[in-house]
């Protein structure tokens, strides 16, 4: 009853381009943002910030980056973690080489470097497509972390390859504590999400979708495939690079290449699959799921009588549950968790009547 669309006509072009077309959705989003920005930083505890909220936001951004490339432009990539690593290390090096550089500019430089690398490894997409593209992204996945470990130049000769991130300050305020890092992450992710949301509804986004659905047809109707594909790689690389900088600076507070291995790339791919290919909200739903699912499972195992499931077995069961879940999602819900929202919407519209 309260989710009626009746009467909410758009009479101006500006209305049509709105982020959320219905006032109920706008209010819901405003409420969520108000809670995330105004309530959570004061009420949450450090465990929530460091173990759940910051990784969730950083992974959401990474998922969003991959979704732009895979979900919208249709280019499969298994190298996401490598671009995150490139972003993290570039941001770190930028801050060391240019003392006094504000952190946000450093993160931006990290994103740009990751974007440049992403374009480089995306170049083969002009000649090849589909599964063959996996190999060039995997080349990035193995080459970049290898180079970061091998050449001490990237980590400034630090013996362990592990470096501590400089403090994060805004206008003299030190935001290095968990709540502050949460706020920085949140604001960064919100800004980039807003840009991405508008981008996928712009001409470029429509070009990407045309390329994804059939690139031959897209070329026939006059879309420049090289431009569309390379822009997809560049923008996706930028998002992944910033996500990597967030991961290193806001979450771990250290920069190290080992956290950016193939497993992380798969994790990001699963975020996109479970959340929903070709959906901005899906990246957030998928990331929430990926972060919360292992926690829920281990809590569940902890609630069982002692000795039912031992720690080693729990990991295997987690893996199995995860694999089964991916298959199940692909079979039952090919659009991912994001389509649940759509379905809920159409139900809420009729409530309390049923069909």
């Amino acid at each position, binding site marked *: 009853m309260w989710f009626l669309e009746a009467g909410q006509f758009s009479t101006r072009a500006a209305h049509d381009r709105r982020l959320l077309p219905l006032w109920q959705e706008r209010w819901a989003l405003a409420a969520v943002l108000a809670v995330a920005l105004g309530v959570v930083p004061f009420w949450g505890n450090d465990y929530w910030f460091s173990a759940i909220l910051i990784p969730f936001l950083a992974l959401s951004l990474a998922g969003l980056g991959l979704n732009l490339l895979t979900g919208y432009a*249709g280019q499969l990539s298994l190298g996401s973690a490598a671009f995150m690593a490139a972003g993290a290390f570039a941001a770190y090096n930028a801050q060391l080489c240019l003392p006094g550089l504000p952190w946000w500019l450093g993160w931006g430089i990290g994103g740009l470097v990751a974007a440049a690398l992403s374009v480089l490894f995306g170049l083969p997409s002009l000649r090849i497509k589909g599964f063959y593209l996996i190999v*060039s992204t995997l*080349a990035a996945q*193995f080459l970049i972390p290898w180079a970061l470990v091998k050449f001490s130049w990237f980590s400034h000769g630090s013996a362990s390859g592990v470096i501590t991130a400089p403090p994060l300050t805004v206008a003299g305020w030190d935001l290095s504590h968990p709540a502050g890092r949460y706020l920085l992450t949140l604001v960064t992710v919100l800004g980039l999400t807003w840009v991405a949301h508008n981008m996928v509804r712009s001409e470029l986004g429509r070009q990407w979708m045309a390329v994804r659905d059939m690139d*031959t047809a897209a070329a026939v109707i006059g879309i420049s495939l090289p431009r569309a594909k390379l822009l997809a790689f560049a923008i996706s690389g930028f998002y992944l690079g910033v996500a990597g900088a967030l991961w290193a600076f806001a979450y771990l507070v250290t920069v190290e290449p080992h956290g950016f291995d193939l497993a992380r790339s798969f994790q990001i791919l699963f975020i996109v699959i479970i959340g929903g290919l070709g959906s901005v909200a899906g990246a957030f739903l998928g990331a929430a799921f990926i972060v919360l699912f292992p926690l829920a499972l281990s809590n569940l195992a902890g609630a069982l009588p002692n000795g039912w499931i031992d720690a080693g077995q729990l990991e*295997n069961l987690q*893996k*199995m549950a995860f694999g089964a879940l991916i*298959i199940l999602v692909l079979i039952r819900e090919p659009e991912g968790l994001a389509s649940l929202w759509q379905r809920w919407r159409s139900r809420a519209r009729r409530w309390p009547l049923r069909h």
Partner: protein
Amino acid sequence: MDFFAEVLIGGLLSGVMYSLVAIGFVLIYKASGVFNFAQGAMVLFGALTYVCLLEKGLPFWAALGVALAALLAMALAVERWVLRPLVNRPPITLFMATLGLAYLIEGGAQALWGAQVHALDLGIEDVPLDVAGLMVSRFDLFAAATAGGLVLALSLLFNRTRVGLSLRAVADDPLAAQAVGIRLPRVWAAVWGVAGLVALITGLMWGARLGVQFSLSLVVLKALPVLIIGGFSSVGGAIVGGLIVGASEKLAEVYVGPLVDGGIENWFPYLLATVLLLVRPAGLFGERPIERV
């Protein structure tokens, strides 16, 4: 020069081991168009089942039979619960489903048999054999002979039997094959079963080399550049691709590796494959698809 030849031959022979993994891929790709990332997990599962049954005291043939039966049962289950519900979905969806399948099988194999390393002795001594002044590993030669036998058996299966004929028909055009009365689910189950057999053989070979452990499921990563170079749909291509990857990565490690402090074996095949793809987008032996709008 001798050293070069030795490195080259060592590389070629280890490339044969990569080909073994790649053949399993090619089989499934040919018959169902699925890029099966779970092949590595199947290799792990087969080898682990075999080794653990052997350690439980089963005789050699019984353990082999049970492991094979387990893989066949898995093939049927995959066809029934993964492939059939996903029929007619885009290839990328099927690929992702095999990613999930890989997790499921890896987790299942380790939940069932534990995660410790098992030694596997196939009864072939790994003493170097002197061939015209060059030292060649006897085990590698055995692996090469096995791969050769496997390719021969598979080509006989494909070209001389009724099952093989229907496999090729399905690979060519699933709709037309269905129209003439070939049952797709059966063909899929058969081809996943054959891929399971190949996975078991691969697992035994790799397991004897590395020990049966989790890293067996990572051999799938070695097979990818092999496939790319050889083309997804050619068993012969998988062999040639394996040889190229094996030889080039060993040569690169020995001659280029020292310049950059080593460890390039992991990514060199991928770089090679990428460069090759820029020249020949469908691999050496792959067919270039014709597209209509």
